[in-house]
């Protein structure tokens, strides 16, 4: 089991932190959790190709969590040349409608797909990649999840719970994956000290949690229960008995020399487990940080 952070940023454009994206490798499965702008670039930097990806899970449909879906799906379909299974896609409604609007026969990318399927030049490329005509339209296997669903993989189980974010405008989920090698929970975008998230994260090895801003600087009370902040995240992690807390979804406000260390210190007063300040391309030690010998 391997957990790599692809994007630890926000919608604010940044070359240091791409928008949300996480990659979990379990056995032969390569799962993406969210795939915001820039996450795909990081995935390539992490040495994975689109065709290697088997599953994608979206926590919610804010663009900073899903806009690289287009790049992933089209590239995977094009490079895969019918030799790989369709992408398995999971997320809250209306992920099915969104997929149709992007890749359906009247969708945004229908002209591209039509040309790649019909034009002889594209068919020739398809054949050189090992495809056997006629070339098929991509049909991702969409599963719209409900907030109490479970998804059963070959050697893993994924559990869904509601996050505390921008409902009812968007359905927002948190996820937890359990397998023999460990358990990883992801808050999606979530704020406050949310009981459902604490329940989901109970005793997990790793909790990846949105830490959007510095507690106390929220413009309103509502903002606080919608976006993660360090004091609330510390409470969630402590109450859930999480072994390692990975902080992510950072605004520039807190990603400053001395400010991040200040936050780490304050979280450490409330939460006694391991803390990891996430960075793009970081491989997170699922069973906790290892100590190396001095050499």
């Amino acid at each position: 089991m391997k957990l790599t952070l692809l994007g630890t940023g926000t919608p604010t454009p940044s070359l240091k932190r791409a928008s949300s994206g996480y990659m979990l490798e379990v056995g032969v499965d390569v799962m993406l959790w969210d795939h915001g702008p820039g996450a795909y670039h990081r995935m390539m930097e992490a040495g994975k190709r689109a065709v290697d990806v088997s599953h994608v899970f979206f926590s919610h449909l804010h663009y900073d969590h899903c806009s690289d879906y287009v790049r992933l799906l089209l590239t995977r379909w094009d490079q895969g040349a019918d030799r790989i299974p369709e992408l398995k896609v999971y997320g809250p409604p209306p992920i099915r409608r969104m997929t149709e609007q992007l890749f359906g026969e009247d969708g945004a990318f229908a002209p591209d797909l039509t040309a790649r399927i019909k034009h002889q030049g594209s068919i020739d490329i398809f054949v050189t990649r090992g495809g056997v005509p006629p070339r098929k339209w991509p049909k991702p296997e969409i599963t719209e999840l409900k907030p109490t669903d479970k998804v059963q993989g070959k050697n893993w189980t994924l559990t869904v719970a509601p996050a505390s974010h921008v409902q009812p405008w968007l359905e927002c989920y948190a996820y937890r994956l359990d397998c023999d090698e460990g358990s990883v929970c992801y808050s999606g975008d979530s704020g406050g000290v949310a009981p459902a998230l604490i329940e989901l994260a109970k005793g997990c090895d790793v909790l990846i949690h949105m830490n959007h801003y510095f507690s106390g600087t929220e413009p309103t009370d509502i903002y606080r229960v919608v976006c993660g902040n360090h004091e609330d995240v510390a409470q969630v992690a402590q109450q859930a008995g999480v072994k390692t807390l990975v902080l992510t979804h950072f605004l520039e406000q807190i990603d400053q020399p001395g400010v991040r260390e200040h936050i780490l210190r304050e979280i450490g007063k409330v939460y006694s487990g391991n803390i990891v300040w996430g960075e793009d391309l970081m491989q997170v030690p699922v069973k906790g940080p290892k100590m190396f010998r001095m050499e």
Partner: protein
Amino acid sequence: MRLRLLGTGTPTPSLKRMCSGYVVEIGDDVLVFDHGFGAHHRLLECGIRPTQVTHFFCSHLHYDHMGDYPRLLLTRWDQGAGKIPELKVYGPPPIREVTKALFEKGGAFWPDLVARTENLCSVQIYRARGGTGERKKPVPEVTELHPNDVVNGGHWKVTTVGVAHFGPQLISYGFRLDTPEGSFVYSGDSGPCASMERLAKDCDVLVHMCHYLSGTELGPEFAESCMGHRELAALGAKAGVKTIVITHVTEQIDQPGVRERVLREMGELYQGNLIFGEDLMEIPVRGPVAAKLD
């Protein structure tokens, strides 16, 4: 006053952390503190040209602290084309001998210097860069420092102390820079010692070697010559330092979760600001400020 970290690593090769180097800009002066391998690359990434550098302070003569001295001096001289003052170089003995062995007759770069000053093509380039008259070879103004020496730069001063690192084979110094805009102390490489504690008294920023996890030292000599995280926190607390910047970071502690543990344990002993240094980081000399949420 602007303080940036150029290299926060060790002799171990790394693309993430270059060997030691720091740069301070005060008024028109650009002071480089140590210049190990890769630090010059970072200097360029900061947008600072070698011709802008006025002073070089070398804490000691381990190569990870001065390996890029030739690059700095030669490029500065070549690009400067006789239009800028000689580089002012400060460090422990035998920095004069080292400078000679690099740039004087019989030195490692003498053939290059002869060619660049005597070959017609090179002289033409020199003139195209605005150089006039006969092209002269570089003659850096080297000052060998002794403990407690003070270098006065007008609107700033640098104070020198001896520190605990790999003596007697090498002499190693810590430096303190005082300016009206704040004070910056640099440990060079040092284990725990009383002189650093005095030097760092009440300073704004202490950039200090944090080489290993306390308790994993290879032996007592190692612990005397290199700094562990707990000892550094104790030093910061005792000296009343406002901000500690952790640098000279080994892979041992530069791991997800380990660096946060280091910060947590240091925070138990030291109440001031902590900064885990990174190459190219600009240090807020008056302490970190949380920006408004937007």
